[in-house]
């Protein structure tokens, strides 16, 4: 006899029983003890078939290969740069991954990126020791200049982007800003100062209401009103 003890989109706390019986399988952020499944985190329940998983409401960003993030240069080494990534670990960018042109041996690396600069970079590798390797050699990856950077909870990033980028496209269209969302929760907005402020407010609103349904319609109304 298996039984689901919670419902889809319920908020659960760590240690809360989600299901009774062996017919259900523990998914992300859950664990099984004897014949019950419990939550590991504070989050929302989602059930797909027999698998129960929890979408966390908050938590740190964990670096993942292929993620596009926004990071800050904290050090320049002999052969590259060290970045702060808004995770517990710093990341390395090698000169050969930073630019397509040839960099001479005696060249001053701070001419390309200097300490304190922000850049849009992509994670190419995360080792088991959480050493992160970055690249800046793809389209859209570059040093950030102008505009503003805001920081949100990295768990809400998928909601800010929306299904197939629907939400972020909506904000871009309505505010006329160029927006780059890093998976680590840093977002770069560039446009007119009024547009930037509107986009910032919109994103903060999404962050606050990410767990509610009908978010896209709400955003359309919010952006429509203040236009």
């Amino acid at each position: 006899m298996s039984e689901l003890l919670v419902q889809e989109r319920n908020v659960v706390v760590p240690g809360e029983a989600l299901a009774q019986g062996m017919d259900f399988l523990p998914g992300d952020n859950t664990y099984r003890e004897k014949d019950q499944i419990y939550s590991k985190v504070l989050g929302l329940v989602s059930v797909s078939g027999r698998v129960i998983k929890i979408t966390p409401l908050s938590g740190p960003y964990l670096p993942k290969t292929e993620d596009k993030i926004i990071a800050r240069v904290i050090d320049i080494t002999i052969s590259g740069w060290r970045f702060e990534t808004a995770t517990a670990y710093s990341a390395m960018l090698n000169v050969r991954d930073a630019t397509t042109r040839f960099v001479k041996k005696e060249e001053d690396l701070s001419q390309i990126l200097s300490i304190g600069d922000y850049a849009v970079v992509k994670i190419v590798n995360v080792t088991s020791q959480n050493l992160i390797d970055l690249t800046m050699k793809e389209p859209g990856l570059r040093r950030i200049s102008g505009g503003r950077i805001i920081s949100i909870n990295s768990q809400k990033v998928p909601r800010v982007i929306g299904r197939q980028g629907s939400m972020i496209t909506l904000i871009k269209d309505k505010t006329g800003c160029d927006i780059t969302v890093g998976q680590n929760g840093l977002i770069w907005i560039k446009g007119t100062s009024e547009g930037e402020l509107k986009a910032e407010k919109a994103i903060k609103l999404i962050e606050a209401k990410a767990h509610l349904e009908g978010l896209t319609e709400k955003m359309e109304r919010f952006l429509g009103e203040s236009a």
Partner: protein
Amino acid sequence: MIVNKETIAELAKENKRLDNRALTEFRQPILVETNISWTAEGSARVQIGETVVMAGVKLSLEKPYNDTPDEGGIMVNAELSPIASPEFESGPPSIKAVELARVVDRGIREAKAIDLKKLCLVPGEKAWFVIVDIISLNDGGNLLDVAGMAALAALKTARFPVVDPETGAIDYKQKTDKSLPLTKEPLPITIYKVNGVLLVDPTNEEEKAYEARLTVGSDAKGTISALQKGGEVPLSITEIGKMVDLALEKASFLRKELNKALKA
């Protein structure tokens, strides 16, 4: 984390700010709540924008200092608790905490805001000492002004405890309706210079993008009691003049807000 430093500087040149405020506009809401602690003789919680500071006043009977046998004393202590910002650590007070305490202290002390002679009960033996504790609850920028306002609100609401006339023991559980001998009401206002432009009430981000700042402590009549300069860039005499004028104007604005809140 330092973000948007360049953008703040560029916008300042166009008289704009990241949050669309005017350069000389304080954030809203400005909230003052008094008597938040019944163990303190006076207490207040002040919020400007997202910055929240709590201040408490304790009174104790001590032996006066040898060089001022007929005066009480005042001590201001500030704590930047880790709950307020990820940048604050527990442990011994940081430079920022010491500066905060000293700037608030100097504003009150040098204005001679409290008549210390009236605090003395028996010269050379017994006098009231006023201890002001400032605790930051959330640092959203501009802790200096908020702390100064909280300290003043706490001083204004402080009431002496009951003292047993025979034993001289203080009963902190009972308060008299006698308030502190406040002769002046100093408020510090900090003016920030960013890219050559003057602004007030900075956010966290703006606080990291400034070139220089000047804290001006002044009373209700506009008499300046204390100054504190910070930042790496020097200030010219004309700039200081402008900053002081702006600070006096903003001090009277905050004073109005404070008095409005205390009356309500």
